[in-house]
């Protein structure tokens, strides 16, 4: 009997593994079926309207994706937009994280800065485009500015919430070890706030990526938003939709990337959810 229990447990584990695979496969089939239904409905509507500018058939869009991928135009614009997003996110994080730390740690700083933040926050990045056009003109600076602006607020608010939410007991524990205040900030408060900072970064990526099209639509000579606008003027709807699809896929991949980063930097936070 002594060996029976672990063996049974091993069997259970295998069974759970198989089940999980089956569930994964089943989910994939459900997904395929849904997508298929989506494309069928799309094809029927396209055939019925029979206006390829208004709504091209799925096949036309797939053909456009293939052609744009083959001459690398799709990847060229995607790369530029992606680089702008990474750049603006870095600027945004560099500004928002220190400010958020200061606001979270010091009541005074929080109270002084908060009113400004609360007034600016509801203004969408897009609302700044006309003004930004005057200041930056058309080029890299305008989309960088708009995307930084969009990503800044989620990162700032997440940082503040993270710092304020640090378990009091952890700080007390460090204080009873006689650890100096500055070291407590760098070695306790910041690591303890890191999981919510990663969530904030995820929201920042989403916000800044959502702003990409609007920012590039008007203010940039390249990028996914620019390409959408370029092909719209040519009435080439399949190409327009190909670039829109690229925006969706790339946004999804960025989100997966940030989540992978979070697992890498804060393994205790992501593992903890599956722990008993």
């Amino acid at each position, binding site marked *: 009997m002594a060996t029976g229990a672990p063996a049974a447990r091993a069997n259970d584990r295998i069974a759970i593994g198989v089940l999980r695979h089956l569930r994964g496969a089943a989910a994939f089939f459900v997904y395929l079926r849904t997508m298929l239904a989506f494309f069928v409905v799309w094809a029927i509507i396209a055939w019925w309207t029979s206006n390829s500018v208004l709504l091209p058939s799925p096949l036309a869009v797939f053909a456009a994706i293939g052609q744009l991928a083959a001459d690398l135009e799709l990847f060229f614009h995607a790369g530029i937009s992606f680089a702008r997003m990474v750049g603006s996110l870095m600027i945004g994080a560099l500004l928002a994280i220190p400010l958020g730390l200061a606001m979270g740690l010091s009541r005074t700083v929080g109270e002084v800065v908060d009113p400004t933040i609360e007034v600016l926050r509801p203004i969408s990045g897009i609302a700044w485009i006309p003004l930004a056009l005057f200041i930056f003109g058309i080029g890299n600076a305008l989309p960088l500015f708009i995307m930084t602006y969009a990503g800044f607020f989620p990162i700032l608010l997440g940082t503040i919430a993270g710092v304020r939410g640090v378990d009091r*007991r952890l700080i*007390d*524990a460090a*204080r009873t070890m006689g*650890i100096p205040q500055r070291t407590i900030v760098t070695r306790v408060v910041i*690591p303890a706030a890191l999981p919510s900072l990663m969530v904030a970064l995820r929201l920042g990526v989403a916000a800044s990526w959502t702003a990409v099209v609007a920012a590039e639509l008007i203010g940039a000579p390249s990028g996914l938003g620019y390409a959408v606008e370029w092909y719209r003027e040519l009435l080439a709807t399949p190409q327009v939709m190909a670039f829109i699809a690229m925006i969706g896929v790339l946004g999804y991949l960025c989100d997966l990337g940030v989540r992978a980063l979070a697992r890498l930097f804060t*393994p205790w936070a992501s593992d903890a959810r599956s*722990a008993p």
Partner: protein
Amino acid sequence: MGTINGSIKLRLAHVGKRFDAAGRAATVAVDDFTLDVAQGEFLVIVGPSGCGKTTVLNMLAGLDRPSAGSVTLDGREITRPGPARGVMFQDYALFPWQNVRGNVGFGLKHGPAGAGLASDARARRVQDCIDLVGLNGAEDKYPHQLSGGMRQRVALARLMANEPEVLLMDEPLAALDAQTRLILQDELLRIWGQDRAQSSRRTVVFITHAIDEAVFLADRVAVMTTRPGRLKALIDVPLARPRNDATRASAEFQALSQHIWSLIRDEAYRATVT
């Protein structure tokens, strides 16, 4: 009443603590609490939940200031936390981003406890403390990968690594199952040094709501009552050291436990109906 042997390490003199809440009546958590703890003494505070045990410990730790009276260490007023008084918190307060080694060595690496220690001496002390609590092999695990009993051992090792003169422990065994609890009581006494002379032992203030645990560990038991939190009685525990399972089975142990239970029984019953 309890008698004190040796020099006084900690002194609580007419200590009161009230928490003022906006718009509500203030809570008097602790009232006129007077207690001396001798150097090398193992003092246990028992009392029902909410009687102010943690509040007393926080004031000894310097995490909280008394509203009345004074709290002193070696005759000097305690105004803030310091490395001479190590605390083991009720919920362990381990750093989740540090593995066992990082948690145990945290104070040595970032605090005054490690000042003047070379890094290999530090690493050796960390390893010694990990071995002391029986966690060798788990050095690279993170708190969320450990059982409650193991976390508790990490917290104990972290406390010991800083070598504080005074150990303040807030219900450290409360979250454990009965067996683990007995084992850790034995280990705690071993680590504390119950085989050594009193002058070379550390001073311990240990909180629990379990009477048998109090009697097993303590030189003296301070019994508290609720609302306001007051010291009701100080009981000497003259059981011989080293203590072990035979101690738990002895008639004297049973009699002392019974006596303490009789002191807080009425209140404990009242607490179950209110």
